[in-house]
Structure formats: C-alpha cells, structure tokens
C-alpha cells in the first residue's frame, strides 16, 4: 500500500484545522469531499434499533429504599466505574462528582423546616444532574458544548467545551464538576469502553445516554435494586408516571423554574413497585 505525498498534505491541512480545538465540524462538513469520493462511502447515521426512546427521560428516586451506606456506595460506584470518574478524595477541591449522597437539609436546601418528622430530616438522598426542562447551564454555555437532546437529556460535548465554567455558575444544583487537573492518574480502574476526560473541561451526569442508546437502563438504576425508576415523563403508562400519579414526589428547587426531571419520594412513602 503506497500513500501519496499529495494525499498527506491534504490530510495534514484538514487535521491541522481540526486540531485547532476540535472545531473541524462546521468548517469541514460544509466543504464536503468531492462527489466521486463521497458516493463511495459516507452515507448516514441513524438511531440504533436497540435504542430506548422517550420524549422526556425522567427519574424517580425512592429515598426510603436507600437504607444503608452500602446502598449509596453501590449506586455511586456503579456510576464511577461506568464513566471513569476520578477519585481525588472527599476533601479535595478538585473533586469530580456525577452522583453522590447528600442529607435532606442540603438536597432540599431552603426547605429544611425544623418541624419536619425526624425520619425525613435524617434521610439521605442521591443527587445528580436533574436534566432540567429549562436548563440554565445550556442557556449560558457560549459554545453549545452543553446541549439538550430531543429526549430531554442534557448532554455535554467534551471536545467542544472551552472550560469557561459559566455552566457551573448557572447550575442551581451544584451538579457540575470541573477537571482542574488531568483526571486520568486518579481513576482507580479504567473502564476501557468509556472515554476519560481531559483537564480543563466540565463534566456531569449524562443519564447514561450511551446506554439508553444501546437499549440499556442507566447503571445507577440497575444497581439500585429497585430504589430508582427511570422512564418517559411524557408517557402516562411509564413506570415513572405511574409512581408520580399515586405518590407525593418532590423536586429540588422547583421555584426556580428549571423543571428538574429527577423526582424524590421522601419520608418513606415509598413506591411499592
């Protein structure tokens, strides 16, 4: 196999543009390859036949089923493992968190009424990105590195993020983390099927979109032993809707109007699923 020098110059030029910061896309797709070359290959992309579909993905968390520390650890570790989340230790300023445990007073900061039942005040909750209906993080991002998919999931393109951290200032839920340093040396056990991140970009929970698109439920839901439910908020027959129709569930900071897609059943009014 011989590779011509001319080819390489073309290649070099294209890659050089691309390396200017993962910015090839808009520039180069507009300059489509010459007709003869395209017709031989590029055709298209489509949604996998296995993919799970929804108009708006949502989660219901039954806090009463998170009884012990082990219940939280199991869920957190499943996420950490699946998504190559580094561990900087609990007190580090550089912590990266996708889902983690918070007490009632912090999860529902502003609702921590002193006269709540002890059972509720003592309850702990897994928190994560709420995949808001009107996400302020998406609104402020200057590059659309943070975006909302048609199925409601708020995703991130780590290739496009410039690390301005505007989204972190804008998220009312503290759901976002920034890679202050190279995360890779701090990943305990790299999962080769999922990418790691580079320093200088923001990251957060992605509702396991890579799994949904392959027909799988989010890892936390799988690991929760029935404490977390996942489904289409738009579909009255979905699991999450059935629970919400019959139980009193609350969301974090609803008054801000971001429309979180994560619902919590508090105080043991659990969903007998």
């Amino acid at each position, binding site marked *: 196999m011989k590779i011509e020098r001319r080819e390489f110059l073309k290649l070099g030029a294209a890659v050089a543009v691309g390396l200017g910061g993962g910015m090839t896309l808009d520039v180069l797709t507009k300059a489509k*390859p010459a007709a003869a070359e395209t017709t031989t*290959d590029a055709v298209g*992309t489509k949604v*996998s036949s296995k993919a799970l579909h929804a108009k708006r993905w949502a989660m219901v968390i039954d806090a009463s089923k998170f009884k012990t520390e082990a219940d939280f650890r199991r869920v957190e570790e499943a996420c950490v493992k699946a998504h190559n989340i580094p561990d900087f230790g609990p007190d580090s300023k550089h912590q990266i968190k996708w889902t983690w445990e918070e007490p009632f007073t912090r999860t529902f900061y502003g609702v921590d009424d002193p006269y709540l039942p002890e059972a509720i005040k003592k309850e702990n909750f897994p928190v994560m990105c709420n995949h808001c209906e009107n996400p302020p993080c998406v609104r402020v991002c200057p590059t659309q590195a943070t975006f909302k998919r048609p199925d409601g999931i708020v995703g991130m393109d780590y290739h496009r993020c410039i690390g301005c951290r505007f989204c972190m200032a804008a998220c009312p839920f503290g759901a976002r983390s920034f890679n202050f340093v190279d995360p890779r040396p701090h990943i305990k056990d*790299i999962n080769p099927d999922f990418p790691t991140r580079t320093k200088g970009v923001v990251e957060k929970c992605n509702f396991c979109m890579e799994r949904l698109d392959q027909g799988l439920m989010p890892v936390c839901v799988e690991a929760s032993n029935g404490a977390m439910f996942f489904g289409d908020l738009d579909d009255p027959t979905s699991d999450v809707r059935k629970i919400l129709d019959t139980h009193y569930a609350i969301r974090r900071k609803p008054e801000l109007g971001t429309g979180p897609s994560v619902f919590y059943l508090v105080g043991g009014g659990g969903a007998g699923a």
Partner: protein
Amino acid sequence: MIYGGKKIFAGLFIFVVLLISPFLANIGKADAQPNPSLNTPTIDALAAKQCVGSAQFMRTYHMQLLNEWRDQALRHGEYTYVNSQGQKFTISLENTCLKCHSNEQQFCNTCHTYVGVTPYCWECHQKGATQ
C-alpha cells in the same frame, strides 16, 4: 548605496537562510513514505479486511467522519452508522474503531508523525479498549 545597506543585506541573508532552513536540513534525505501496519489480532481474524469505508476514503476523510459521528451520536442519539454497502456499525471510538486499530504506534502514529500532526484522541479514548 542605501544607508546601512550592508546591514540590510546581511539581515536579509540571515532571514532567507532561516526561511529555507527546513529544506536545507532535509537536502539529500530520502522521502521515506510511512508504511502503517494494519495487522492487529482483531483485524487478522476478520474474514474481509474492510473498514467502515474504503481505504481511500478513510485515509482522506477519517477525521471529518469522526467529527460527524461525534455530533450524530452525542447530540442526536444516532449511534448507528450505515455505509454505502448498507453495512451497519456502532459509532464508538472505543468499541468500534479502536477495537480493530489497537496498534496506535504502528497504525495511527506512522502517518500522523509523517504529516506532523499530533491528535490527542488516545488521551481520553483508551487504546485498543477491551482486548
């Protein structure tokens, strides 16, 4: 003679030498073309050694293709790529591209070094994924 003419010409001379220095440095050296190796256990085990596109296409446009893939998969949830033969592939660096091309040194870098580019794909996307 221009004022300070000697200095100007000396300066010009130095400038020109610097300008062509890369060419001077390469004079007489063979223009060795890269010879990337396609052989990895996964590829060797394939019945038909065929990438998602023709070799010619992949060589020229793999970076555009990857860029398009990223947007399609990430933003539109379209994780399946269909090529002109109607064959389907899962869009994933880890689970598709790098499964076969697990030899970064002999495959990717050979050409990248030759054209003097340093893509940073492998910093985040694990080489060779699960082997």
